[in-house]
């Protein structure tokens, strides 16, 4: 194994931020996501001989990460699933930087989607994969991927409309806290 392609590490590095964002969306919290990315990097490194340079490293890495995630989930059982508050909490740490205030509600709605629909809409809408690539990553048919994305979209639209005013629970509280000094 002396003919190590030097650019493998480089290609890995370029993909890491996006891979990590996908991991966060799967795990819903960043510490778990970082562990998952780390496991993925080690797997990928060990398997790099099976990767052909010049082919789609991003899709290859996403596939490894996703397989790893679901195999860990199966091992641990579903108890690792967090309630939908965690990611939202974490987002609210730096809302101003990204104008993310209203993204808290969006994230909550996203977390309410079934896993297969959530990952589908993220791979297509945010990670920038084609339906064909996303279908390959998720080991499903292209048609299945399309229908998952479409159902996810409809569901999100419904949830966001419903969520609009009434479901303001924690946000209303934090709004009160931040605007607290109204009291004279």
């Amino acid at each position, binding site marked *: *194994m*002396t003919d*190590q392609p030097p650019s493998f*590490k480089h290609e*890995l*590095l370029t993909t*890491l*931020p*996006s891979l*990590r*964002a996908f991991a*966060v*969306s799967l795990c819903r919290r*960043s510490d778990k996501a*970082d562990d998952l*990315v*780390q496991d993925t*990097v*080690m797997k990928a*490194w060990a398997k790099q001989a099976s990767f052909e340079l010049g082919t789609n490293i991003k899709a290859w890495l996403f596939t490894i990460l996703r397989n790893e995630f679901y195999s860990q989930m199966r091992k641990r059982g579903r108890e690792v699933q967090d309630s939908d508050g965690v990611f939202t909490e974490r*987002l609210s740490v730096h809302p101003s*930087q*990204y*104008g*993310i205030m209203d*993204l808290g509600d*969006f*994230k909550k709605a*996203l977390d309410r989607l079934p896993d297969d629909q959530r990952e589908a*809409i*993220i791979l*297509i*809408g*945010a*990670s*920038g994969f*084609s*339906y064909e690539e996303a279908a390959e990553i998720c080991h499903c048919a292209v048609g299945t991927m399309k229908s998952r*994305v*479409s159902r996810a*979209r409809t569901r*999100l*639209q419904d949830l*966001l409309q419903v969520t609009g005013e009434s479901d303001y629970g924690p946000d209303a509280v934090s709004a009160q806290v931040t605007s607290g000094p109204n009291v004279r």
Partner: protein
Amino acid sequence: MRDNKLMNAMGSVGRRRDEELGPNSDIGNKLRALYGAVQEEGIPPKLLELLDRLDEAEQRAAKPPTD
């Protein structure tokens, strides 16, 4: 309608993003904002160290034995 065509021409060069989640779509934009926020956090140092260690270990292994 003309706007849609323009958006398509601008937004999907060489890329096949779902039109319904394209730059015109509120959901699409929010998805990307959320995703982008995590992306911009950068790579945790722990991971960079791991990559360096893997790289080093490999280079050491690749060297011919010294004796």
